[in-house]
């Protein structure tokens, strides 16, 4: 029989500090993403390979300056990969493994459960962008520094919008269905959603993918403020997805 010193489990309840909870939760989310091989393939390796391909292979039509245009589009792809597809799949499996239930039973406030995931996703996106930017610079990309604030803003906005869409998908369906759908949607958006190529069809401009790619192209290539249209499209998708997700997301 195992014995414990009296008082070992004497109750001393209380909530931890909010800053520490947020830090540990966000660090956990980011670490788990970076440790997952499939996530790395999706969020780092494929975007890197495509960046190099689009920059150096002239068979794919791309407006000049070629490397700049490719960089903007691959930034958009990287954000979609991790904030949407990666987040949806992770959430689908986290729900299957009951971790949301576990955490929602702890002292972690609900808003912090969301904030921790958002911060974790932003850390991953920042690392992706840094890696892609260094590669682009090596490939000859010239970044007009005036565009930096806009690029940062768009990266955050894109992460939030696609993150909300990822939560909408990953929070409602079964994990294996999420896995299939999140990958299919990623591929469709890449090919015909205005990411890899500009698609000259009216409704495509209303997709968040085309809006993000277009807005990033303005900031990355020309260093100027993105148009109101694409930003409005991104915000609208994000707000609607977030509002619906708060109703449809289930813990298990």
């Amino acid at each position, binding site marked *: 029989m*195992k014995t414990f010193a009296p008082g070992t*489990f004497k109750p001393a*309840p209380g909530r931890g500090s909010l800053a520490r*909870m947020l830090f*540990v939760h966000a660090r956990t989310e980011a670490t788990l993403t970076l440790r997952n091989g499939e996530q790395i393939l999706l969020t780092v390796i494929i975007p890197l390979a495509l960046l190099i391909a689009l920059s150096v292979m002239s068979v794919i039509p791309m407006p000049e300056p070629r490397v700049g245009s490719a960089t903007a589009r691959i930034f958009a792809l990287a954000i979609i990969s991790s904030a949407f597809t990666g987040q949806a799949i992770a959430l689908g499996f986290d729900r299957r493994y009951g971790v949301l239930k576990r955490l929602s*039973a702890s002292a972690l406030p609900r808003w912090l459960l969301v904030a921790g995931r958002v911060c974790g996703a932003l850390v991953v996106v920042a690392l992706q962008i840094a890696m892609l930017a260094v590669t682009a610079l090596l490939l000859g990309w010239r970044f007009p520094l005036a565009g930096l604030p806009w690029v940062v803003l768009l990266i955050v906005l894109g992460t939030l919008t696609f993150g909300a869409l990822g939560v909408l998908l990953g929070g409602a369906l079964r994990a294996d269905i999420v896995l299939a759908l999140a990958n299919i949607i990623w591929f469709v958006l890449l090919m015909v959603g205005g990411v890899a190529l500009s698609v000259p069809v009216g409704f495509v401009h209303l997709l968040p993918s085309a809006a993000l790619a277009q807005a990033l192209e303005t900031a990355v290539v020309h260093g100027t403020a993105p148009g109101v249209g694409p930003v409005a499209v991104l915000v609208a998708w994000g707000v609607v997805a977030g509002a619906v997700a708060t109703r449809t997301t289930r813990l298990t």
Partner: protein
Amino acid sequence: MRFSRPDRLGCVLVSPNPQPAVEVSGLVKRYGSKTAVDGLDLVQHPGTVLALLGPNGAGKTTTVEICEGFRSADDGSVRVLGLEPGSEALRPRIGVMPQGGGGYPGIRAEEMLNLVAACAAHPLDPKWLIEVLGLSGAVRTPYKRLSGGQQQRLSLACALIGRPELVFLDEPTAGMDPQARHLVWDLVNALKDDGVSVLLTTHLMDEAEALADDVVIIDEGRVVAHGSPAELTANRPDDQQLRFRARPGLDTSLLSAALPEGLKVREATRGAYVVEGLIDPQVVSTVTSWCAQQGVLAEELTVAKRSLEDVFLELTGRELRS
């Protein structure tokens, strides 16, 4: 000017009729046309261990999950430590071990425990708890590759790490080997000794009998019996059993005829005989000599009061539940 002190102390000391740890009244929960919990009442006193005992599908998990704030009640009221289940004021004060699951698929045991520890103001030492629960050899194993029993132990650690006042354990020993099961029992007893209230669900009679101050037997969403294990198994003088093993297929009607009126004899399972009624030394002697006449040896002969299992089966029936 220190006169106010005794007054204040006095106020604390006389605090009458301490608030129940859990108070459920008239609880109803329906899933579609099925009523899972049907007007359930229970009160758990602080610092006690209460076991919700019932067959599969009796409504144990639904009841506990409503107390934990995971599900909403359709009717009735539930107060946990006097608060609304699931409220932000309550959650830091309780520890929860859900039935199965509870980790990121790729997280390591230590990371998971550190994360939950970060949510608490005065957590136990995660390293110590990992060691106590025998998970030291698996600290670097991803959650999804832990065995069922290891996942259960990690889940228990997560429930305890925040030094809660009240712990909910939903089938805490399911899927555990005997060593781990006894460790959980030792932990529950240590929790109780330190004043922590524990509400656990189980369908294991020995678990309820060994741990609980109070047992609430529920079936089809209703309380069918309630009391301490001793009260539930307390027997009338004529409500005893003599059990023995012998060759299967003995003619029990012959033994019945040899025994005093009012005693019942049956072959409970193959080769296991039960005599029920007032068992006195004369009855024991009659049984053994009758067996000798039949040329069989009565083995493992015991006289016992009803077990919790007998009470449970009487109340909830013997047929299998789907």
